[in-house]
């Protein structure tokens, strides 16, 4: 917190409250440091050099003070290099390496870091603050300006609210965005006045209180001369990169395990971990009583193949219903996803590991989603569609919108609004068709949603970043920049840290991505065999039964639970009393969604109903004491 007008005691009190509110993120140590108008606080989950590395960490000359969340995987190499440059290391901790790297190289150090991070550094000499976030958004960083031109930052929104310096006011525009995307896309957050520093961005606050934010990393150029020229070389190169990433992500001085769902991605990660020397590896998966959801057999096959100590946790609707108060309390923002991560993390932490690796990111990098197959087809049809007379097109769109199915209405959104692949990629990730979303919003929020339109708020930024990219890169980037960054990674951070577990994602690795990105698209993706490249690169590890299995996803039997164990919660959530806390929603329309779900029992509608329910329940949360 940097506040030019508040006194030291007020500031330290506020930061102490923030640290307390996110104690679960770091139960091993905590600290506070004040200098001039700045107070930095930290609670630490000790992973590397647990005995040392106390934060906030100040440079020997007293100029720089650092608070850092995450892990720098190449810290040993950097340490050697920085020591040669004259830095006298006091610890073997990545925190000190980051401090030294910034002290010696300033913001330029960012490009040399391999890892996941969000950090802030106070420069006592310049009286300025620098903060940055990792390239793909694994670790979060939220901030709000203070009325005195100061700033307050934290890894969780709940911590910012706990400071008492930021009002807890849900932004109706953000609520509208949430209904479109399953989450509130950065740089917005669900709260008015609080921003989410986007992935790969840095922030500077100077002594005069001027704030500047901007990207320090962007996706690589679409092509490069030194790429693989044949598939064999490509697969060999990919395997080398995967091995390298796994080695880097295993760096820790505490036990490291892995999530193992039994799908291609997590099996590949576990296989690569064992190949890189992990012994007595602990793996964790969720299983369900309901038929068709468990990947128990695949996970067991993988565990047996790699000889891991495998832990299974039975998850039932009754347990989720009983845990809902804790679950909702751990939410930082509403999300339509993430409950699986909450339980998998709980299982892993109880199973004795402090760090777990996950296969998150495999679908985005290797074309695991149907969007990689469907969107290029739609893109080819767009010019033909746009050549039809405008009246006819309007008619078709109106007819599709009049149909009751969400599929028809989503198609109507594509036809009405998409002009190129970026807009197709943007629209395909929407949860609710535009007409349905607008009907659920109260007039003020609806007017704002209509002004902003149905496309993703960052459409132009992403489209400009991808000029010259091929269709596979465009779709991959959209998946990386939207669903992965705003939903999967955000949920993974919040729900793993809720159990003091550090979740690492070796597929979401800058080095791997920068190598893979310019490679030929037909090497990376085959529409007949999604994720063929990953399967071929790990063919000696992943059992054929798993490589050849169709993608199942890490899904929960929510459709059933919502009509059984979770029904009382949902009935209460959709009640008039509960909806009173959501003046930006059109209560009767929202209640109709729940009534329709109960009567029509369309199992595919569950995520839309749940998304709404979470938003309402979130708005009804009471602040933690």
């Amino acid at each position: 917190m940097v506040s030019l007008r508040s006194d030291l005691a007020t500031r330290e009190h506020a930061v102490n409250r923030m640290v307390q509110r996110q104690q679960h993120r770091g139960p091993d140590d905590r600290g506070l440091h004040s200098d001039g108008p700045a107070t930095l606080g930290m609670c630490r989950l000790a992973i590397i050099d647990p005995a040392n590395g106390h934060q906030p960490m100040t440079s020997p000359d007293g100029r720089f003070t650092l608070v850092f969340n995450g892990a720098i995987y190449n810290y040993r190499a950097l340490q050697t290099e920085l020591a040669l440059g004259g830095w006298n290391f006091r610890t073997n901790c990545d925190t000190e390496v980051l401090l030294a790297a910034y002290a010696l190289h300033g913001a330029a150090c960012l490009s040399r870091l391999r890892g996941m991070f969000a950090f802030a550094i106070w420069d006592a000499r310049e009286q300025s603050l620098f903060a940055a976030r990792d390239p793909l958004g694994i670790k979060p960083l939220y901030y709000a300006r203070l009325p005195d031109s100061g700033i307050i930052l934290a890894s969780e929104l709940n911590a910012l609210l706990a400071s008492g310096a930021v009002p807890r006011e849900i932004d109706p525009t953000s609520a509208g965005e949430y209904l479109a995307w399953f989450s509130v896309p950065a740089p917005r957050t669900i709260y008015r006045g609080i921003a989410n520093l986007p992935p790969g961005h840095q922030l500077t606050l100077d002594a005069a209180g001027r704030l500047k934010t901007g990207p320090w990393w962007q996706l690589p150029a679409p092509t490069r001369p030194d790429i693989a020229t044949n598939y064999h070389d490509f697969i060999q190169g990919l395997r080398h990169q995967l091995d390298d990433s796994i080695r880097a992500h295993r760096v820790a001085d505490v036990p490291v395990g892995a999530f193992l769902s039994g799908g291609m991605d997590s099996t590949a990660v576990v296989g690569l971990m064992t190949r890189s020397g992990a012994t007595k590896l602990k793996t964790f998966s969720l299983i369900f009583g309901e038929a068709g959801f468990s990947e128990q057999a695949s996970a067991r096959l993988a565990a047996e193949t790699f000889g891991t100590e495998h832990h299974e946790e039975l998850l039932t609707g009754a347990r989720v219903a009983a845990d809902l108060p804790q679950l909702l309390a751990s939410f930082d923002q509403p999300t339509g996803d993430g409950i699986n991560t909450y339980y998998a993390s709980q299982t892993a932490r109880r199973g004795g590991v402090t760090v777990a690796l996950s296969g998150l990111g495999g679908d985005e990098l290797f074309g695991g989603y149907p969007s990689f197959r469907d969107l290029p087809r739609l893109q080819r049809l767009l010019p033909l569609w746009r050549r039809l007379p405008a009246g006819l097109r309007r008619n078709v769109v109106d007819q599709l919108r009049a149909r009751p199915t969400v599929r028809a209405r989503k198609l109507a959104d594509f036809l009405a609004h998409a002009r190129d692949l970026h807009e197709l990629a943007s629209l395909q990730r929407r949860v609710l068709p535009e007409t349905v979303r607008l009907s659920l919003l109260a007039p003020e929020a609806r007017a704002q949603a209509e002004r902003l339109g149905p496309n993703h708020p960052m459409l132009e930024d992403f489209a400009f970043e991808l000029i010259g990219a091929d269709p596979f890169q465009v779709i991959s980037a959209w998946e990386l920049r939207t669903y992965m960054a705003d939903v999967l990674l955000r949920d993974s951070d919040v729900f793993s840290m809720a159990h003091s577990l550090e979740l690492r994602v070796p597929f979401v690795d800058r080095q791997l991505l920068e190598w893979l990105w310019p490679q030929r698209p037909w090497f990376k993706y085959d529409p007949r065999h999604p994720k063929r490249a990953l399967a071929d690169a790990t063919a000696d590890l992943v059992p054929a039964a798993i490589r050849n299995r169709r993608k199942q996803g890490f899904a929960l039997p929510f459709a059933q639970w919502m009509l059984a164990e979770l029904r009382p919660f949902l009935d209460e959530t959709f009640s008039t009393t509960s909806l009173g806390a959501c003046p930006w929603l059109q209560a009767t329309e929202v209640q109709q969604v729940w009534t329709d779900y109960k009567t029509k029992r369309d199992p595919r509608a569950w995520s839309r109903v749940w998304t709404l329910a979470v938003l309402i329940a979130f708005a009804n949360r009471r602040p933690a004491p």
Partner: protein
Amino acid sequence: MRIVLLSPELFLHEGGIARIMRLYLKALCEIAGPAGRVDSLVLNDHPGRDERLTRYTTAQFHEQVGCRRGKLRFIRETIRLGRRADVLVCGHLHQLAISQLARLFNPRLKYYLVAHGIEVWRPYSLIERRALLGAHRILCISEYTRRQMLRFFPALPPERLVVVPNTLDPYFAPALNDQVSKAPFATPHILTVSRLSSTDTYKGVDTLIEAMPLVRREFPLARLRVVGQGDDLPRLQALVQRLGVGFSVDFTGPLSDEALRAEYAICDLFALPSRKEGFGLVFLEAMTYGKACLGARAGGTPEVITDATGQLVEYGNIPDLAAAVADLVRHPRDSEVVRRHADTFAFPAFTRRLAAALA
């Protein structure tokens, strides 16, 4: 250098494109050189010389052809004038295919496109794509427009797209007796200048009106002056009535240059929170009067408004808009800094940039 300039309009109506094309005419006359010649062909204007033409021409200016919306005549004249020209500057994408046609009759002819804004932020037809590929250079009024063109037509060689930011009309500069700054504010007195067309609701005039109740909560005497005309006016007037802010919003209708200058001079800040400005010439006009500007963080606007000259808000975010007005009132921008920023877009700099792009 023998140059032909194609424009949709120069003097018929007072639109943004017409205003900037007049400055292209003036700059091209200077660039053509002592032995050069400039012809102007205008699709919509009436035949004959408008009295204002002399302001924008020099001795190098030769022929002014107005086609009174006659497309066939426009095509014929383009071919005729193009035959004896070295350079053809095309002021609108819709006329680019005709420029390409003219080159069939004069293979030495190099043609250029002026890419303004919304008219090029879209997918292109086959004919447009071919014409774009044949253009020697594309003169984009902002980096934003340049990127939009590359987005919708990635096959365009990026080096052919050059940014030539719009400029201020030297004849619009404040007169000596204009009151160019007035601080601190008494009320805030907010000015907006825009076409009020039902097809251009993205300009955000409605959002400014919607922000007025919030602005007035803090500044009860705040006023909003809306300059412009169009078929969206009844909707905006109804909005004013519905919000009960009739006594703090004035619709002036269209104004003469002189009256508009007076509006710029007496306002406290200028606002146009538009979602799709290619550049936002009106911001520059306001800045020459030292007025802080409020725009949306969208389109080419962020290339014109800096922290030192105003504030950017999210398009359509009413509370943010009201907060930004309050912030600009509480922390007025230094009018001298604002004026100096406008100077960086002055006509001589524009002419130099254009000459370099045509070289």
